[in-house]
């Protein structure tokens, strides 16, 4: 194939006016100048001559790119860079040489063996034909600029953008990117499309609030505008948003974030919107709240009914026992008056009189205990500081005679002062001491021990008591005790474990004790061994719990 003539070579230097020596000198100078320009150029330059592309000139820069030294001069391009065999480059060079048309490539990947390893590089390069003095092509000049770093960086940015886009598209929550002051939908995932309830083609690349005018009316555009202008993100929690979805107006609840979307320089390009549709959760919670409210109301009503019925019962017990008491008192007195009035009473009649008197006395004490029980309440009573030492001392005085008769001792010291209903504290400890003096072992002097200490919080929790500071009292005796299986039963009203002849009583005392302790928001229980004494445990607040 013939080398083409260079059309640009028109004016030729006036070589005829120079003598051969001068000409030779001139040529040598020109070549030297050319070589030094090429050598010092800061970008790769190579000159390959003949169709075999023999390297006649290669500057440092091109040798660095190839990863080779001066040994390349005089070798063919193919010999030096065999790795380019199937990268079209030989063909490009040959085309330039044979056709005379320069070849330019931009950001072209070229794989070169450098440090013994084939590696990718990127170049902007040119192959340009070089002409003889007669205008025929004798070689190709190769100039290049390595752009590997720039291209790799660009690829990285593109990859990162793609990753970001994929992340949005694949995210398990509704996401979109809205760009510019009109919030044009640039990227949107399926979940967001689903939430909007509009076909994707009606929103894509359009200002979002044109597509969703109802969202605009609810102030969302103003919010987004603010984020776009100020760069401050906005968070909404369970915000009700009404949307026309698939032609139907629906109230949805959304948690969403509007986050400014910025470029590398920090300029705001748009807004990244992330939305979680929490409608179902909110609805479910609202439903639960409604049910809880309804149940609470029902419970409050039931409680009020129960309270009313308790009050009525207490009222009934009070009236019934109060009114029962009167005629019975008269029966009791008249029978005594009758006995006094009769001049002679035989033994049999006296026995009958005694039975009537005993029965009416017992009936009266029953009625009075019921009356006392029904009057136990905490609402009408005032809580005061009560010194339990004094309470026990007073009870000891009340029972003086019985204590003497039974040779009993009541041991106590350093009992606390608590905030309580004074009368009820007397009734509580009075009933317990009365029991301890009643249920004694024959031939054994009763010993009653009363102790107190601050209750530990574990016990308070176990007994389901309210939070607060409590005292733990123990009233222990050395009497007959009781069967531990009956330790709860004994607190029931009218519950008796013994015959009336054996031990007197109405069976109300411990029921009263429990009610008193409950009035004070405390707890009472008993432990015992049959025949080995009983212990009553009382946990009551140090101060009144309102």
């Amino acid at each position, binding site marked *: 194939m013939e080398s083409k003539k260079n059309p640009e070579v028109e004016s030729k230097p006036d070589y005829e006016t120079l003598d051969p020596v001068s000409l030779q000198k001139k040529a040598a100078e020109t070549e030297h100048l050319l070589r030094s320009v090429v050598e010092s150029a800061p970008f790769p330059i190579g000159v390959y001559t003949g169709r075999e592309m023999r390297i006649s000139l290669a500057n440092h820069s091109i040798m660095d790119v190839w990863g080779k030294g001066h040994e390349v001069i005089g070798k063919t391009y193919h010999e030096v860079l065999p790795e380019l065999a199937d990268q079209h480059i030989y063909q490009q060079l040959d085309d330039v040489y044979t056709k005379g048309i320069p070849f330019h490539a931009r950001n072209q990947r070229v794989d070169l063996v450098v440090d013994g390893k084939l590696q990718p590089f990127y170049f902007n390069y040119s192959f340009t034909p070089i002409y003889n003095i007669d205008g025929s092509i004798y070689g190709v000049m190769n100039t290049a600029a390595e752009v590997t770093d720039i291209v790799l960086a660009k690829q990285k940015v593109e990859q990162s953008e793609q990753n970001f886009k994929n992340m949005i598209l694949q995210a398990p929550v509704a996401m979109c990117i809205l760009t510019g002051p009109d919030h044009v939908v640039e990227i949107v995932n399926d979940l967001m499309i689903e939430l909007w309830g509009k076909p994707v083609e009606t929103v894509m690349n359009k200002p979002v609030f044109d597509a969703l005018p109802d969202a605009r009316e609810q102030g969302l555009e103003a919010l987004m505008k603010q984020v776009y202008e100020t760069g401050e993100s906005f968070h909404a929690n369970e915000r009700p948003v009404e949307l026309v979805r698939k032609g139907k107006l629906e109230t949805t609840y959304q948690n969403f974030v509007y986050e400014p979307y910025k470029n590398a320089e920090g300029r705001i390009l748009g807004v990244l919107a992330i939305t979680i549709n929490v409608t179902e959760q909110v609805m479910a919670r609202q439903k639960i709240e409604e049910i809880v409210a309804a149940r609470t109301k029902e419970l409050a009503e039931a409680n009020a009914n129960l309270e009313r019925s308790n009050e009525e019962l207490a009222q009934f017990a009070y009236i019934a026992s109060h009114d029962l*008491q009167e005629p019975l*008192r*008269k029966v*009791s*007195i*008249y029978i*005594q*008056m009758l006995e006094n009035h009769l001049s002679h009473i035989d033994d049999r009649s006296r026995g009958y009189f005694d039975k009537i008197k005993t029965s009416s006395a017992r009936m009266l004490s029953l009625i009075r205990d019921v009356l006392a029980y029904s009057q136990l309440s905490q609402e009408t009573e005032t809580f005061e500081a009560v010194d339990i030492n004094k309470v026990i001392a007073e009870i000891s005085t009340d029972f003086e005679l019985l204590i003497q008769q039974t040779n009993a001792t009541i041991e106590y010291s350093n009992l606390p002062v608590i905030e309580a209903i004074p009368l009820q504290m007397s009734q509580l400890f009075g009933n317990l001491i009365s029991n301890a003096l009643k249920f004694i072992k024959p031939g054994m002097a009763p010993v009653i021990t009363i102790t107190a200490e601050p209750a530990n919080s574990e016990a308070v929790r176990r007994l389901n008591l309210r939070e607060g500071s409590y005292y733990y009292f123990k009233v222990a005796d050395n009497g007959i005790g009781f069967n531990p299986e009956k330790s709860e039963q004994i607190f029931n009203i009218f519950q008796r474990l013994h015959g009336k002849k054996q031990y007197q009583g109405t069976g109300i005392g411990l029921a009263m004790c429990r009610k008193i302790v409950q009035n004070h928001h405390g707890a009472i229980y008993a432990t015992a061994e049959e025949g080995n004494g009983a212990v009553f445990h009382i946990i009551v607040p140090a101060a009144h719990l309102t």
Partner: protein
Amino acid sequence: MAVMRILHIDDDEDDHEIFATALSEASTGIELSFIDNARDALQNLMLASQYPDIIFLDLNMPEMNGQQFLMEIKKQDKLKNIPIIILSTSSHKPTIELTREAGAKDFFTKPDKYEDLVKMLKKVLN
């Protein structure tokens, strides 16, 4: 010994009978009068020329209760110095306290035993 005039105000006639019997056993030289209505008792006393030496007063009565009667008596200069002793079925401490504040001389719960009533009257009158 001068006769002691006692007025017993109680709406319950049985209680009056019991009171009168016990009183006769407890003391002598007593002139006992009885009225079953505190309002009438007050009216009578306002018009009376002679006053009782002691009044025994029930509390729970219709029309005018013992507490109201007590307070009215204490407003009248002529009557306020008559000693008034409450004899009621109540043993309610606040009720007792109220009558003391209103000027009652003493308070007794109607006893269950006849002997206790006689003992109480002997103590009050002697």
